[in-house]
C-alpha cells in the first residue's frame, strides 16, 4: 500500500518534470523569439528598435544562450518559487497570472461536478430503461451536445440572455465586484456566475460520459451477480444501485484523469467567448507574442494540475475497487 503510494508519487514527479521540459521545448518551437515578435510589433506601429536595444533585451532574458541553459535557469528559478517576469507585460509572471489559475481550477472542477452530476443519473436511467422514450431522448440530446462546439453554445446562450434577459452572461463577476476586494457578497456573486460557464463547459464531456456509463451498466446488468442479488429478494432499485452501478462506477472514476485536461483546454475558447478571467486567454496571447516565461509557466502549471488530477483519480479508483487495493498487498 505504502509502496504503491511512493511509486505513484515518484511517477507523478517524473511526469511533471517531463511536462516542464516539453512545455519549454514546445514554446521554443516556432521560429524567432520574443524579441523578433517585439521588433515586428514596434515596426508595425512605426517605431524602430535598434540592434543594440534588441541585443540588450536578449541578454536581459538570456535568449542568447543555448536552450538547455535557458531551461536550466528557468526551472531552477521556478523551484525556488520565482516564475520570472513576463516579457510582454513587464511584470512578474506571478502577478500577471494572479487569481486566474484558481478561477481556471474552479471552473474546471465545477464543470467536472456538473458532468458527473448529470451523467451518472442519466446514464443509469438510460441503461435501466434501455430503448425507452427517455433513453432515446437523452441519446439525441447527448449527440447534439457532442456535435455542437462549446463556444457556439456559449455564443447562443450569451445572445439569448442578452436579448431576452438584458443581462450580460459573460464574466465571473458583476461589474461592481470585478475589482472589489474579497467579501461574502463577492463570493456569492462568483457562485451565481459559476453555473453557466460550468454547464457549457460540461456538456461535451457529459454526453460522452453518459454513453460510457450506459454501455458499462448495460454490460454489468447482464452479469450473474445481478441475478444473485435479485434471487435474495432485494428490491430492484437496491439491486441496481448496490451492485451493477457500483461496478460501472469503476471506469467512471478513471475518467477524471482525462476529463480534467479536456476541460482545461476546453475552457480556453469558452473563456475567450464568455470573457472569463481564466488562464486560457492569457495563454493564447502569450503564445502569440512568444512571451516564453508566461506561456511556459501556464503550460507547466496546467500540466502539474493534470498530473495531480490523475493522482487523485488513482486514489479514487483504489478506493472504489477492492481488487486493486488487494493486488497491492
Amino acid at each position: 500500500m505504502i509502496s504503491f503510494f511512493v511509486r505513484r508519487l515518484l511517477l507523478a514527479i517524473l511526469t511533471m518534470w517531463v511536462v516542464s521540459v516539453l512545455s519549454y521545448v514546445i514554446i521554443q518551437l516556432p521560429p524567432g523569439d520574443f524579441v523578433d515578435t517585439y521588433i515586428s510589433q514596434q515596426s508595425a506601429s512605426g517605431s524602430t528598435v535598434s540592434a543594440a536595444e534588441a541585443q540588450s533585451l536578449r541578454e536581459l532574458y538570456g535568449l542568447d544562450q543555448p536552450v538547455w541553459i535557458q531551461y536550466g535557469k528557468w526551472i531552477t528559478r521556478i523551484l525556488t518559487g520565482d516564475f520570472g517576469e513576463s516579457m510582454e507585460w513587464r511584470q512578474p509572471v506571478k502577478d500577471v497570472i494572479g487569481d486566474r489559475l484558481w478561477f481556471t481550477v474552479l471552473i474546471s472542477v465545477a464543470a467536472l461536478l456538473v458532468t458527473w452530476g448529470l451523467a451518472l443519473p442519466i446514464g443509469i436511467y438510460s441503461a435501466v430503461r434501455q430503448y425507452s422514450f427517455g433513453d432515446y431522448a437523452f441519446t439525441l440530446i447527448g449527440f447534439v451536445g457532442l456535435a455542437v462546439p462549446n463556444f457556439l453554445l456559449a455564443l447562443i446562450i450569451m445572445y439569448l440572455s442578452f436579448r431576452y434577459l438584458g443581462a450580460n452572461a459573460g464574466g465571473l463577476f458583476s461589474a461592481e465586484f470585478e475589482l472589489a476586494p474579497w467579501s461574502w457578497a463577492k463570493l456569492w456573486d462568483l457562485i451565481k456566475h459559476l453555473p453557466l460557464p460550468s454547464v457549457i463547459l460540461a456538456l461535451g464531456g457529459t454526453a460522452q460520459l453518459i454513453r460510457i456509463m450506459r454501455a458499462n451498466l448495460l454490460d454489468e446488468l447482464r452479469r450473474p451477480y445481478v441475478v444473485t442479488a435479485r434471487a435474495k429478494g432485494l428490491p430492484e432499485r437496491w439491486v441496481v444501485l448496490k451492485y451493477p452501478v457500483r461496478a460501472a462506477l469503476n471506469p467512471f472514476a478513471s475518467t477524471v484523469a482525462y476529463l480534467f485536461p479536456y476541460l482545461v483546454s476546453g475552457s480556453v475558447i469558452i473563456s475567450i467567448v464568455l470573457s472569463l478571467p481564466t488562464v486560457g486567454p492569457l495563454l493564447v496571447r502569450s503564445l502569440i507574442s512568444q512571451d516564453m516565461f508566461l506561456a511556459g509557466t501556464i503550460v507547466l502549471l496546467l500540466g502539474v494540475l493534470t498530473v495531480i488530477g490523475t493522482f487523485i483519480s488513482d486514489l479514487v479508483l483504489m478506493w472504489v475497487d477492492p481488487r486493486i487495493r488487494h493486488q497491492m498487498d
Partner: protein
Amino acid sequence: MPPTLMAERAAAPAAGTPILSVRGLKTYFRADDGVVRAVDGVSFDVRAGRTLGIVGESGCGKSITARSILGIVDRPGKIEAGEVWLTPGGGTGAPIDLAKLASDSAEMRAIRGKEIALVFQEPMSSFSHYYTVGNQIMEAIRLHSDATKQQAHARAVELLRLVGVPKPERRVDEYPFQLSGGLRQRVMIAMALACDPHVLIADEPTTALDVTTQAQILDLMRELQAKRALALILITHDMGVIAEMADDVVVMYLGRVVERGPVDAIFHDPKHPYTQALLRSIPSIMATPRTKLATISGSIPHPLNRPTGCPFHPRCPDFKPGVCDKAEPATTVIDDRREVACFLYGGGA
C-alpha cells in the same frame, strides 16, 4: 428475534411433504425475429427432504425454469402460462401461485431468498467483487428478518462454519476474489441458506469445479438437505450427478419435459429415446477405457427453428415418419410418478 440456525429448525417438515408444484409452465422470449419458447409446458413436484433432478442438454430451458419459479426472468422473457404453487413455511402455510405475483411485488420478494433460494453454476461471477462475502450474506439476513448488524454478522460466521469454510471469523471479511473456487461455492451455499429457505434450487452448482471439489460440494448439499428437510431442485446436464443425488428426475428437451420418473426407473428402464441417448452418453465404470462415448447424433436445433411435431424427431433413432413429424406427442401417464411424451408409448391426441 434472531433467526434460528437450520440445525435447530423448530419444526422441520416431514420428508415427502409436497412444497412446490409446477404445472404447465411456459416462459417465452418474444423478440422481433421470433419467439423463443424457452420453457414450453413444464410440470413437476418438489417435496421436502427430496431431490428433484432436472437434466437436459445446454439450452433446453433448465435455468429459465428455475428463474421463472422465482419470477426473475430477464426481459423480454415472460411467463406466458402455467402455475407455480408454493406451500410456504415448509408445507404449513396457505399455497400461493407464484406465477400470478408481479415480479417486483413485495410478496414475491418476500419469497425469494426466504422460502426459495438459488445457487448458481459460476461462483466467481455470481458474487459481486465489490463487497465482502459477509456483507453479501448479511444483506439477505437483514432483509428477511429484523436481526441487528451484530446478530447478522454472527449468523454469517455460523453459516460459513456450517458449510465447512475454515476460519470463518476471518473469511467473513474477505472478498470473493480472495477465495478458491470450492470455497466460493460453499459461501454461495451459505448465502442461499442464510434465511433458512425450504426450497433450494441449485443450477449446475458443481459444473465449474474440479472432480474432488465437486464431490465435496455434493456431499455438503446432501448433508444440509438431511439436516433441514430441504426440498432440493438440482439442475445439471450430468447424468452421473443425477444418479448420485436425485430421487426423482425430469428430463427436458427444447423447453419440454420429455420424461419424468423416479431415479431408478429412469436409469434402469428409460422410456424416451432422448433419455436413452443421454444414458448412453455417460461414461460407465464398466466401459473399456478410451472407447469412444456414444454421443447423441445431430445437434440441438436453433431455438428459433423448432422442428415440427416431436421436437426430438430429427435426432431420434426411433423416428416414425408421418407420425412424429406431424404432431407433438402428448404426455402419457405411466403411473403416478412416471410420464413420458413420445408416440412409442401412446402420445396420440
